């Protein structure tokens, strides 16, 4: 049986992990490659680097980071942030990443999803959707949640799948940073609307939150950043918790 995945997200700026970490015994806790290796040892199923480098001339640093990571960490690695073309994606994927995630560029030019999926296969293309509740539904936002788009999250997910996305990384802007739990309602709505896997993101504060979104929320995977970095939830304990509830996980 396919296991539910636990994914660690690292915000990377100019080749360095931005949010502090509580990982001890690391030579360099700001090094994304070292952190990815540490998460791998803890049993995480996948790692995502979110590149938040602002300056265009320092964009290349993420490539070097991916190269170093992929030489020592042999689990799936996804990279998102600033990917706007097939060329951008190719640089990342040929460096050793397995997937790229697109967000703003895909909303502005959905054919990009098709081009990426034709070039690299849909399994390499993650559509990241940032959504905020509005009335009965959820609205899509781009530019890191700054710009509202005239698009419902559920519709966009369905379209994204049709354009060729292989997976959806769904972030609830309402829950993100609250540590009060994932948005199970949003996640379930998206998960039922598409036939591709859905990764839930935003709001993780405890192991039980993961259990909720992986069952009630019908997510295929769940992602967190700070609670892992600060050691509030350890991957091993989390998986034990999920396993005890009968949720299939890789131990």
């Amino acid at each position, binding site marked *: *049986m*396919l*296991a*539910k*995945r636990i994914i660690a997200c690292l915000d990377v700026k100019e080749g360095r992990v931005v949010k502090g970490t509580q990982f001890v015994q690391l030579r360099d806790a700001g090094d994304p490659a070292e952190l990815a290796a540490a998460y*791998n040892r803890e049993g995480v*199923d*996948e790692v995502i680097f979110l590149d938040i480098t602002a300056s265009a001339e320092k964009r290349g640093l993420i490539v070097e980071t991916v190269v170093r990571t*992929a*030489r*020592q960490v*042999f*689990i*799936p690695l996804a990279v998102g942030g600033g990917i706007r073309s097939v060329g951008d994606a190719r640089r990342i*994927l*040929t*460096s*050793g990443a*397995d997937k790229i995630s697109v967000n703003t560029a895909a909303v502005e030019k959905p054919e990009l999803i098709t081009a990426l999926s*034709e070039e*690299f*296969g*849909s*399994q*390499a293309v993650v559509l990241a959707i940032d959504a905020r509740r509005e009335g009965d539904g959820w609205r899509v936002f781009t530019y890191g949640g700054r710009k509202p788009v005239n698009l419902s999250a559920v519709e966009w997910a369905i379209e994204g799948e049709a354009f060729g996305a*292989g*997976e959806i990384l769904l972030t609830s802007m309402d829950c993100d940073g609250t540590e009060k739990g994932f948005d199970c309602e949003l996640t379930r709505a998206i998960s039922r609307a598409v*036939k*591709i*896997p859905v990764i839930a993101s935003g709001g993780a504060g405890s192991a039980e939150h993961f259990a909720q979104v992986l069952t009630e929320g019908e997510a*295929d*995977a769940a992602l967190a950043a700070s609670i892992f970095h600060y050691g509030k939830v350890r991957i091993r304990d989390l998986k034990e918790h999920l396993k005890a509830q009968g949720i299939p996980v*890789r*131990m």
Partner: protein
Amino acid sequence: MISVVDYGAGNLRSVENALRYLKVSFATTSQAGEVSRASAIVLPGVGHFGHMMRSLKLLGLLPVLREAIGKDVPYLGICLGMHALYEGSEEAPALPGLGVLQGGIRRFPQGLKVPQMGWNQLQVTPGTRLFQDVEDGPFVYFAHAYYLPVDEDKAFRDRESPPVAALADYGSNFVAAVERDNIFGTQFHPEKSGEIGLRILRNFAVLSQERAEIKSPSRGGSRVG
């Protein structure tokens, strides 16, 4: 020397990384001549069956791969590289596969999340060389929309030693790995399956080397692992 075939597969770099990490000596090549002299062949793959078969054809690699497999050269096909062994795939019905194993690759049926993405648990056939020293029920990483159904494999049913090396369950059982004589294939990605995946790659490298040493004992060479 192991040839890792470069035909533009998306996971080429990851396969190279894993072999390098294991200190396996190999050469990445797209040259038919070089592949034809290889002591073992690894065909990586992720993406589209049609693209792969077209690229292999353009590079003149189809006859070379068939001949090498026929001559008992150890072959490991990963994901699409395993699909290539069969007669064809629903992903690109117009393009035949190598056809060295009977059967056809199908798309996962409706009602499942496709692609199958993530870690699934294997039911390993006891005694397989690929899974030597791998713990029971290992989890390995899959990323695929097309698969080999268990009952598709007519040849397998007729033979005394069934080459299904491992099964996994996604909706129903499917073939997660094959192993027959010098032919090996994994539907999953050993290069992305953590320690277990590294062990599987090492097993292939070791058995390839042992075979090379039997074939030309005078040449010796450094041992893997």
